[in-house]
Each structure stands twice: as C-alpha cells, then as structure tokens.
C-alpha cells in the first residue's frame, strides 16, 4: 500500500469529509424543539381550524383527557366533534403527550413542570412555557398579529408541524 499524498488517499479524505459534513449538517441542534405530530389531518382540521394545532407533547395526557371530555364548553365555545373524531383525537393526544411512553427529554421536562395533581388546560400556564418565554416582554404579546401567548403560530411559523425551534422564531411587527 502506498502512503502519503496520492490521488486515491485524497479521494478517500474528500469522501470522508463530505460524509461527515452531511452527517453534521443533518444532526438536530440542541435548540431544535420538534414535537411529534399525528399522521392524519384530524388534529390540523379540527383543532387547527380555530387556533394553532398545538402539539400533543406540550401538555400531559391528563390535561388532554380533561379537555376532550369538556369540548362542549371549550374556553366558552362549543367545540364538540363527532364521537369517532373525538376518540381518534384523544388517542393521538394521549400517545404523543408530554408524559407519553415515547416522550423525549424536552417533553419530559414539560411534564415534570406540571404538578402531579394538576391538569392544566392552557399550555401557557405550565412552568416550562413561562420559563422558556421569560425573555419575551409583555408588549410583544400585545402586538396585533400576536395578541395572545396562545397564538404560537404567529412567531413559530411551523408550529402546526410541531416545530418550535428557536432559530425559526419570527416576531411579527
């Protein structure tokens, strides 16, 4: 075997460097907050019709169970859906909840930030949400295009795909 700088060794080096670059480029960054979303369109069309299609991993399963049992009075509105639709939504929400079997580190932190005897109905109530948004001034939330901290998609353009990564944040004026 020939040592030193040969075309073959250069080619091997270039290939390895290229593969490493592709690998690094594809690796999720630490701040990539990506939550799993259900495959079907039900959550997007039923929940996402009126507000951001919040990712199931943003609340523990007991919160979703309580919410889906009270859809007739959903924050003052009648958001009831047909029973098969409700059951399908509930299954996805439970499966992918913050305390679900497949929850990642971030989701577990969210679940851990909720007291065991509480079933918060608002993501913005959880200690994790407050902690992660503590640098956002009150005046930001009041901008017309945002209006409320519950309007995730105003600043997280791909919130409906479960993507809340900090680098994607766009603050509307």
């Amino acid at each position: 075997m020939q040592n030193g700088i040969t075309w073959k060794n250069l080619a091997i080096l270039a290939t390895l460097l290229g593969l490493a670059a592709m690998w690094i480029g594809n690796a999720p960054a630490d701040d990539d907050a990506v939550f799993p979303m259900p495959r079907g369109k039900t959550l997007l069309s039923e929940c996402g019709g009126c507000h951001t299609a919040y990712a199931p991993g943003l609340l523990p399963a007991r919160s979703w169970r309580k919410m889906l049992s009270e859809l007739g009075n959903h924050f003052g509105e009648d958001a009831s859906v047909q029973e098969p639709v409700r059951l399908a939504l509930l299954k996805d929400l439970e499966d992918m909840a913050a305390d679900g079997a497949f929850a990642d580190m971030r989701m577990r932190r969210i679940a851990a930030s909720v007291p065991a005897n509480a079933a918060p109905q608002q993501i913005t109530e959880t200690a994790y949400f407050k902690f992660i948004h503590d640098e956002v001034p009150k005046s930001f939330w009041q901008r017309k295009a945002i209006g409320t901290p519950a309007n995730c998609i105003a600043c997280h353009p791909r919130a409906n795909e479960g993507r809340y990564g900090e680098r994607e944040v766009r603050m509307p004026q």
Partner: protein
Amino acid sequence: MKRVVLIASLCAVAPVFAEAPQQVLAALIAEAGGKASPMQGEKLFRGKFTGGKSAESCTACHGDDPKVPGQHIKTHKAIDPVAPAAQRDRFSDPAKVEKWFKRNCPEVLGRVCTPQEKADFAAYMISVK
C-alpha cells in the same frame, strides 16, 4: 397524443376532489326552498347581534372585507378569506361548509342558522368578485 390523453384524464378526475362553489350553493338553495339573496347574505355577514356567545358579528373575526384574511378575536389566529374569489377552496366542500355554519352561527347569533340564512350567506360570498 399521450399527453392529450393524460390531460383529458386529469380533467375527468379533477371534479371528484372538490365541488364548485356554484354546486354547493345550488344544494344550499335547494335546502332553502329555491331562493337565495346575496343582499340578505351581506346583511347577515355585516349585521350586529346580541345573542351570540363570543362575537357580535361575523365580521368580528372575518373582517369587513371577505377577500382579505381575518383574525380570530380570541385566539388571534389568522383566518383565510371567506370569499372563494380570494380563497379558492372556500365553499367547495359541503361538509366543511356545514361544519362552520354549525360552529359559528351559535357564536354570533346564539342559535343555528336557518337554511335560508345559509343559502343567502353563501350566495353573497360567492357573488363577491
């Protein structure tokens, strides 16, 4: 020749996915007993009501111009324009049309909409150019 056949078959398949607003409107008019008034529909769209649960008018969320996106008064989510002239998939899926009448009429009127009101409302939205 192959391309012609392909395009022709695409044209034949396309209507399966969505109905034209005119078809949806025709069904609503049939339900209402044969007549629809775009003017009455506009009155309903712009009217102020007191019986509603969360909004006093349709325009509270949908805005004054049905060709411009609106914003939900509570969640502040952006809402696509209601007029098919500005948002092509509006009034193309009867189930969706029914769903939103069922959801939104009680919020504004405090009751469900009559078949006549639905037909009028659709007739107005489709007439917006």
